[in-house]
C-alpha cells in the first residue's frame, strides 16, 4: 500500500508552517466553503465520512459533535487536546510544527459546526517551539481575518486561546484537561455529567485530538467519497503513523488505515540492518505489545483489536532482539508511576507497587511468584481505576509476560543489563545514523 500524504504533503517546503505556505496548496478554502453551509450539514458530513478520533480511543467524531446540545442558550466550547505525552506517541507535535494552519482551519470549521465562539488548544507544556509555531499561526489567522469577529463576512465569531499545560500526562485525559484549563489541579472528573453536557466552565464542550481536527478541512474540501476511498468500512481515511524504534528511517508516514505494519516497516527502511523484530506496539505504550508474526495485520481499529491490541494513537514502536523486554516494561511503568495523578487508589498504589517490583526484577532480584503477583496487581488496577490511564498502566506487563515469560524468569536471577547489553539497543550501536 502506498503512502497518501495529505496533512504531510508539503512538510518538505521551507514555509509549510506559514499561512502563505498553507494557502499555496489550497489552505483556507475549506473554511470559506464551510461557512456558507448550515452547521448541521457539516456535522452530517463528518458523520458520513466515518472519521474516528485520532487521540487513541477512536470514537466517531461526527457523533461526538452531535452530542453538544444545540439551541440551549449556553456558550459552547471546542477544546483541542494537544497534550500529546504518551511514550511512543509523536504525531501531533510534528503536525503542529509543520502544518499548524490545518489545525486552525479545522478548529474554525468544527467550532462553526457546533456553534462555539471560543476554542482552546491545550498544548503540552514541554514543547515551547511548538507553542511558538502555533501561536504565530493563530496570529496570522487573525491578521488574515480567519479568526476574530465576523470571519470572512459570515457573521461567525471565533476566538482561539492557546494554553500551555504544566507537564502532566493526566491532563491528556479530557476531563482532567478541562480542570487544568480552568486553572484547577488536573485530575479527572466524575462522569456524568459528560463534557458534552457540562464540560469547560460547566458548559457544553467537545474535546478533540489535534490530528482529528486537522483532518476536517480536507474532508470538507474533498468530500466523503474521497475520504472513504481510503481505509476500511469501519476505519475510513488516512492516518499519521509515527514509526519509532529500531527502524532505519523512523518518522511520520501518512498512509490509509489498513496498511500493514510490514508495509509501514518497508517505508521506514526496515528494521535496522542485521536485526529482526522482537516485539512491536501499534500505538503508544498503553496498548498491548504484539509479536512479529502479526506484522501483516492491517492497521485498523478493528483488525488490531482482533489481534489482541489497540490501534491507540497509531504510533508504532518497533523493538528488535537487542531489547530487554524487562527493561522496556520497567521504563514504561516508571513513567506511569510518575504520572499517576493520585486521585484513585488502584492507579496511585498499583503503579507504585508494579514499578517497585519491576525495578527489582530489572536488577535481577525476584521470584517467579513475583510474576504471578504482578499479573494479579495489574488485574486489580484494570477496570477499577477512575479513568482510562489506570487501565493503560495495567496493560504493558501482562502482554509482555504472555510473550516473554522466560525472559522475566531469567530476570529473577540475572540483571537485565547482563542479559541484554543496553548499548546494543542504542542508536549509536550499529544504527545507520
Amino acid at each position, binding site marked *: 500500500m502506498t503512502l497518501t500524504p495529505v496533512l504531510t504533503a508539503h512538510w518538505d517546503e521551507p514555509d509549510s508552517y506559514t499561512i502563505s505556505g498553507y494557502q499555496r496548496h489550497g489552505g483556507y478554502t475549506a473554511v470559506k466553503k464551510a461557512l456558507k453551509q448550515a452547521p448541521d450539514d457539516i456535522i452530517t458530513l463528518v458523520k458520513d465520512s466515518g472519521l474516528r478520533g485520532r487521540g487513541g480511543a477512536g470514537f466517531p467524531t461526527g457523533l461526538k459533535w452531535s452530542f453538544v446540545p444545540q439551541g440551549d442558550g449556553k456558550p459552547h466550547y471546542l477544546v483541542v487536546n494537544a497534550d500529546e505525552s504518551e511514550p511512543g506517541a509523536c504525531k501531533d507535535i510534528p503536525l503542529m510544527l509543520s502544518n499548524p494552519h490545518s489545525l486552525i482551519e479545522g478548529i474554525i470549521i468544527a467550532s462553526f459546526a457546533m456553534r462555539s465562539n471560543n476554542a482552546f488548544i491545550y498544548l503540552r507544556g514541554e514543547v515551547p517551539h511548538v507553542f511558538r509555531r502555533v501561536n504565530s499561526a493563530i496570529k496570522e489567522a487573525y491578521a488574515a481575518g480567519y479568526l476574530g469577529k465576523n470571519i470572512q463576512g459570515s457573521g461567525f465569531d471565533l476566538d482561539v486561546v492557546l494554553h500551555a499545560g504544566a507537564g*502532566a500526562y*493526566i491532563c491528556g485525559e479530557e476531563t482532567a484537561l478541562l480542570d487544568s484549563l480552568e486553572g484547577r*489541579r488536573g485530575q479527572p472528573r*466524575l462522569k456524568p455529567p459528560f463534557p458534552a453536557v457540562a464540560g469547560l466552565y460547566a458548559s457544553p464542550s467537545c474535546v478533540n485530538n489535534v490530528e482529528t481536527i486537522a483532518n476536517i478541512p480536507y474532508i470538507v474540501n474533498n468530500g466523503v467519497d474521497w475520504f472513504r476511498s481510503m481505509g476500511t468500512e469501519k476505519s475510513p481515511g488516512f492516518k499519521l503513523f509515527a514509526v519509532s524504534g529500531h527502524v532505519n528511517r523512523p518518522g511520520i508516514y501518512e498512509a490509509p488505515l489498513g496498511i500493514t505494519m510490514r508495509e509501514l516497516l518497508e517505508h521506514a527502511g526496515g528494521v535496522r540492518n542485521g536485526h529482526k523484530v522482537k516485539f512491536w506496539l501499534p500505538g503508544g505504550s498503553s496498548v498491548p505489545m504484539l509479536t512479529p508474526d502479526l506484522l501483516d495485520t492491517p492497521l485498523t481499529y478493528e483488525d488490531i483489536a482482533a489481534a489482541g491490541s489497540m490501534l491507540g494513537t497509531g504510533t508504532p514502536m518497533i523493538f528488535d532482539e537487542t531489547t530487554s523486554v524487562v527493561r522496556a516494561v520497567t521504563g514504561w511503568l516508571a513513567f506511569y*508511576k*510518575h*504520572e*499517576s*495523578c*493520585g*486521585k*484513585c*487508589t*488502584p492507579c*496511585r*498504589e*498499583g*503503579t*507504585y*507497587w508494579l514499578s*517497585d*517490583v519491576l525495578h*527489582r526484577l530489572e536488577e535481577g532480584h525476584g521470584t517467579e511468584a513475583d510474576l504471578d*503477583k504482578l499479573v494479579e496487581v495489574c*488485574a*486489580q488496577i484494570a*477496570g*477499577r*481505576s*477512575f479513568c482510562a490511564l489506570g487501565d493503560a498502566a495495567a496493560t504493558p506487563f501482562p502482554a509482555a509476560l504472555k510473550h516473554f515469560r522466560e525472559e522475566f524468569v531469567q530476570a529473577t536471577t540475572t540483571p537485565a543489563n547482563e542479559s541484554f547489553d543496553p548499548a546494543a539497543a542504542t542508536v549509536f550501536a550499529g544504527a545507520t545514523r
Partner: protein
Amino acid sequence: MTVTTQLVTVTVDGVTVEVPAGTLIIRVAEMLGTAIPRFCDHPLLDPVAACRMCLVEIEGQGKPQPSCAVTVTDGMIVKTQHSSEMAAKAQAGVMEFLLINHPLDCPICDKGGECPLQNQAMTAGQGETRFDGTKRTFPKPINVSAQVLLDRERCVSCARCTRFADQIAGDPFISLLERGAKQQVGISSDQPFDSYFSGNTIQICPVGALTSAKYRFRSRPFDLVSSPTACEHCAAGCALRTDVRRNTVMRRLAWDAPEVNEEWNCDKGRFAFPYLTDGRIQSPLVRDEDGNLIPASWPEALRVAAAGLKKSGASTAVLTGGRLTNEDALAYAGFARKVLGTKDVDFRARAASDEETSFLAHHVAGSGLGVTYADLEAAPSVLLVGFEPEDESPIVFLRLRKAALKGGTKVYAIAPFLTAGLAKMKGTLIAASPAEEVNAIVGAAGYVQDAGSIVLVGERAAQTPGLLTAVSALVTSTGAKLAWVPRRAGERGALDAGLLPVDGRNTTDIINALGKDIKGLLVAGVGSDDVAADIVAGAERAEFVVSLETRHTDITAVADVVLPVAVVTEKSGTFRNWEGRDRSFNTVVPTPGALSDAEVLGEIASAMGEFFGVDPQFWNSAAKPASGISEPAAASVGQGQALLSTWRHLLDNGTLQEGEPYLAATARMAVVRVSPATAAKLNLVDGATATVTAHGQSASAPVIVTVGMAEDTVWIPANSEGSALGLPSGTVVNVSGGAA
C-alpha cells in the same frame, strides 16, 4: 407544596426495593442494612469516587462500579461483595492497595480502635500483605494549623477533609498537592487551615491522618466512655459526644442531629473544654469578720447566704448570665420572684435595653419552636440584622451557606462591611453604620417579601436604639418570619423561664442601683467584662452578695458568699437553642458533691425556711411591657472620630475558651476596619496600627482598609487579643493611626 418523588425499582443482592430516582447505590444498600465498605463516601459531601473501595457489580456492566457515585436506574440489578465475586475481588484488591503505603502503626495511632481503615481491613482485606517493597514515607506529623496535625503516611487520599473545607465550611485552605503516591494534603505556605470548623476534618478522616494537638496521644478509643451531650457554648444547640477517660473529658465530637447541626460542629464546641476543670472553686467560701473569703462548709455557707438574702429580701437583684440550663433558669426565676419577691431580674450579661425587653416579651418569650434550621434551608431569602452567623452562631452559618449554595436562598445582611462569612454565603451586603441601621431596615422590606422569608436578629440589635422596633415593624408589614439568635446557650431558656425584667430593672439599671435601693445581689455566671456598667464596684457597694459560680472571677472575689456549682459535665439539664428546641444532656462525669444551680437555690430556700416551685408557664400570665422605642442617640462624629461597630469573633478571649492554646492559635487576629474614605479622613494606612479610644478604654490593631464598608464607621472585634474595648456598637470613638 407537594413533592412527587418518582420511584424506581432496584435489586440489591437479590432484594428488590423501590427507592426515589437519583438515590446512590450505596445509600440504597444502607437502607437494606448492607454495609458496603467505603472511605471517600460521606453522605453530606459530593461524591468523588476516588478511593474505589465501594465497587459493586451492576448487571450488564463489564466493570465494577463505584456505588458511592452511581445513581440507581429503574430495573438496575446490583450485586455487592456479598453476592458478587467480582465486587468482592475488586474490594479486596483496593484494600490491599490502600495498605501497601500505609504505615500500619495502629498501636500508636489515635484512630486505632475506631478506624474505618482498620475495621474494613478486617472485613474486606487479607491477613497477610503480599507487598514486600519499601513503603513511601513522610516526616510525621506536620501542622496544617496550630490545632490540626497531619500524618501524611496514614492518608488514603479520600479527600473528605478537602471536600469538607471547600463544600461545607467554605474555607478551602487545605488541598491535595503533588501526584501519585506522593499525593498529600497540604496548605499554602502563607495560609494555615484556620477555619472555625477545622475539627470536623479530624472527625471525618477515615484513618489517623488528621489528629488534633489537643487529643493526640492522650487516650485510646476503647478506654473512653462516650455520652451524647449538648453543646453549652452558643445557642446553636449542637448535639455532641463527650468522651471521658477516668472522669476526665478527653475530647468532644460533633454528633449526629440532622435537624440541627447535621454532623458538624465548630472548633469552639469541639475543643474549648479545659475550663470545665481548670480554676474551679473547690468549696463554699464565706467572708469572715476581717473581710477575707475563707473556705466554709456547705451548711455554714448556706446558713450565711440564707440569712443575708432573707435580710435584703425584695431589695435583692438577681443577675443570672446567659449560660444557665432551662432547669437552673426556672429555679432562679422561682427563687427571685417567689422567695425573694424581687422583680429586678435579668439574664442579659451584655448590652441590653428596655426596647429589647419589650421586643423579646412580644416576639420571642414563650413562643415555643419557631423558625427552624429546616426553615432556613427552605427560605427564599434571609435577612440578617445585628448578626454575623459565622462568628455568633456557626451552625446557622453552615446551614445558611448550604441553603445559599444548594437551594438558592438569598442572604442579605445589614452590617458595616462584607464579612468573610457573608461572602461564603454568597450574601448581599446592605452596608450600614450603627447610625444607619434603622433606615436600612426600612429599605430592606423588598428583600423579604416572598413567602417563607426570614429575618434573623442577633442579640447585638439591642445595641442600636430603635432597631428592634424597626425589625418588629418590618416583619409585621412583610409577613416575614422572625427569629432571634442570641449568642449564649442559656439565653433562650432564661428568657422563657421569665428571667427578663418585664416589670423590673434591666442589668445596667440594677448595677447602677446596687448599694442604693438594691441592697443585695444574687449573681451567677456573669463576667465583669460582659457588662458595660462596673459590676465589681456595684457588688462592693451592695450590702450582701451571693455568687453561684464554677470558677473564680473578679465578682466572686468581692462576694460575701461564694457557692460552687456544677459545670455541664457534672449535671444533667437542657439548653433551649435559638429555634426554641430543647437539647437535653445527662451527667457525663458523676462528681460527688457537685450541685447544680437549681439544687443550691433549693438548699438556700430551705435554709431560709421557704419552699418554692418553678413556673414553666410564666409567660402565660406575665405582663408584656408596651413596646417603647429607645430614642436614637444623636451620633455626631467629629474630627478624628468614628462610630464603633463591633462584635465578638467566635474564637477570642472568652472565659470558656481558657486553657486551650492550640485553639486560641487558630483565632482570627484583631483588626481595625475602615472604609477607604474614612481611612483617608482619619489618616489611617492599610497595615499600620490604629488605636481606638473612648471612655478611658483603648484598643490597637492593624488597619484593613475595607472597600464597600459603611462610612464614618470603625470596626474592631469586641473581645479578641488586644481589642477588648467593652463598649457597644454606636459609641463615638477616637481613632488615631500610626505609620505604616
